């Protein structure tokens, strides 16, 4: 790598650390650490949410998929931006009714009681640590792909910076660094795409040199497979803890609604850019592996000086996702487990101190998993398959219809988890036998049990429900 490019990368890291240092002064209590004092206006909320959900999968992953299969995967994955727009219109504004809520568990506790909070808290914690470990691995992979250094060294350098600013600055630092990272990915990845298009002779040349199927909506997918993928993206990551936490950081429902909705809209643009980069790489470098599509284009096609900035953008994509999940994990541990079940009377000052220590410990743990035990990261990532079939729909029903029945939520979460686990990891190939994926089967079980138990027990008193609603 050229020394000018290296300088660009070092300047980027320096900016992140300075932001962390300056943010530390703004963090005087737990609300600052968890939801930035509920002050985040919609343009900032939009940028931080977009930077959080546009991670390694939406960039390098999407480019690799389009390298392999054309635009079809992008069209199926567009269900996630659609879900984000819908959540922005119908869920995010309603979340501001929950005064002082910082986590999904706070809202679940309000509607479904303390058992639902504990289940949501433990599950969310595992989920966040799994994604964090995967993003730590992605940080190392980007360093390796571009600089040629060891993956482990890349993980240590990148995650040390993330740990530093997120531990001292909490959500204030995460949001500010996310904005810097958003600006980089919104400018430099489209620039990479345009330079790549120019190198191969313009958009017409790209269309001429690839098979027609690469530009179709469904590509080589069957209708059933496309619909399954679409549903997986529609529900799989919707309203996960860090994204919900963003809506809770807004000052009012208007800022939550606009920030969330615009972020969903931006997702469509970004997916198109990432997928097109994959197609460009396929024409320019047909012999590379799909996962190298984006890093190779950045390394080989861009002029000196730009490469370092675009590498920094690629790191920004991954690091902004990692910091969001890290902050969420710490906030969830303290808000949904420590405070309600271990020390209910914990002072705000002590709570902030614990959040910082837990942030540091979880970050170090995720790095160790990524370095020495990737199988643990894989195991934790199994929770990814369980978010939609367990927590998502009871959470959405509760927020939309103000439902209160702890038994229905607990039964639905357990049923959804059980069916998904049996479907996905059980001894029989139920997907082949029924045509339903594990996620769809789990979601059906979740909705059916929730509805049934709610009808049976809705008159029963809430168990340990707490009030957050104004």
């Amino acid at each position, binding site marked *: 790598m050229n020394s000018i490019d290296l300088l660009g990368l070092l300047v980027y890291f320096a900016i992140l650390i300075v932001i962390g240092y300056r943010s530390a002064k*703004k963090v005087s209590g737990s609300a600052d650490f968890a939801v930035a004092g509920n*002050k985040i*206006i919609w*343009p*900032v909320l*939009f*940028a931080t949410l977009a930077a959080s959900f546009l991670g390694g999968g939406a960039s390098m992953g999407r480019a690799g998929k389009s390298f392999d299969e054309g635009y079809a995967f992008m069209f199926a994955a567009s269900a996630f931006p659609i879900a984000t727009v819908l959540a922005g219109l119908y869920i995010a504004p309603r979340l501001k009714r929950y005064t002082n809520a910082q986590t999904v568990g706070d809202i679940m506790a309000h509607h479904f009681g303390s058992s639902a909070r504990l289940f949501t808290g433990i599950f969310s914690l595992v989920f966040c640590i799994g994604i964090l470990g995967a993003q730590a691995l992605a940080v190392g992979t980007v360093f390796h792909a571009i600089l040629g250094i060891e993956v482990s060294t890349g993980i240590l350098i990148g995650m040390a910076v993330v740990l530093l600013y997120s531990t001292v600055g909490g959500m204030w630092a995460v949001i*500010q660094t996310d*904005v810097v990272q*958003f*600006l980089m990915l*919104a*400018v430099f*990845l*489209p*620039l990479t*795409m*345009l330079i790549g*298009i120019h190198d191969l002779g*313009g*958009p*017409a040349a790209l*269309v001429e040199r690839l098979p027609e199927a690469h*530009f179709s909506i469904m590509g080589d997918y069957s209708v059933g497979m496309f619909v399954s993928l679409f549903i997986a993206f529609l529900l799989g990551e919707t309203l996960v803890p860090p994204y919900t936490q963003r809506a809770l950081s807004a000052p009012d429902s208007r800022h939550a609604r606009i920030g969330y909705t615009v972020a969903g809209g*931006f997702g469509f*643009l*970004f997916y*198109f*850019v990432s997928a*097109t980069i994959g197609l460009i790489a396929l024409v320019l470098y047909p012999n590379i592996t799909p996962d190298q599509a984006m890093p190779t284009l950045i390394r080989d096609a861009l002029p000196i000086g730009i490469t370092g900035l675009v590498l920094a953008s690629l790191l920004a994509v991954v690091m902004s996702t990692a910091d969001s999940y890290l902050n969420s994990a710490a906030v969830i541990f303290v808000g949904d487990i420590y405070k309600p079940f271990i020390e209910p009377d914990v002072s705000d000052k002590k709570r902030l101190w614990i959040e910082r220590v837990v942030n540091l410990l979880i970050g170090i743990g995720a790095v160790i998993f990524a370095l020495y035990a990737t199988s643990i990261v894989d195991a934790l990532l199994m929770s990814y398959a369980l978010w939609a079939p367990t927590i998502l729909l009871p959470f959405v029903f509760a927020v939309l219809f103000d439902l209160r029945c702890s038994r229905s939520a607990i039964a639905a979460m357990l049923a959804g988890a059980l069916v998904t686990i049996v479907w996905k990891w059980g001894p029989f190939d139920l997907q082949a036998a029924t045509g339903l994926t594990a996620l769809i089967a789990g979601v059906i079980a979740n909705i059916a049990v929730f509805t049934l138990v709610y009808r049976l027990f809705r008159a029963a008193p809430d168990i340990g429900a707490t009030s957050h609603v104004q």
Partner: protein
Amino acid sequence: MTAYALALYAVSAISVITAVGVGIASWRFYRDN
């Protein structure tokens, strides 16, 4: 210019303009907070 070419350039332009808008709004936000 084909619709595809137009989409590529339009998406790039919207992305950069959005970044400029977010940059200005964020700068004002951090100055006031």
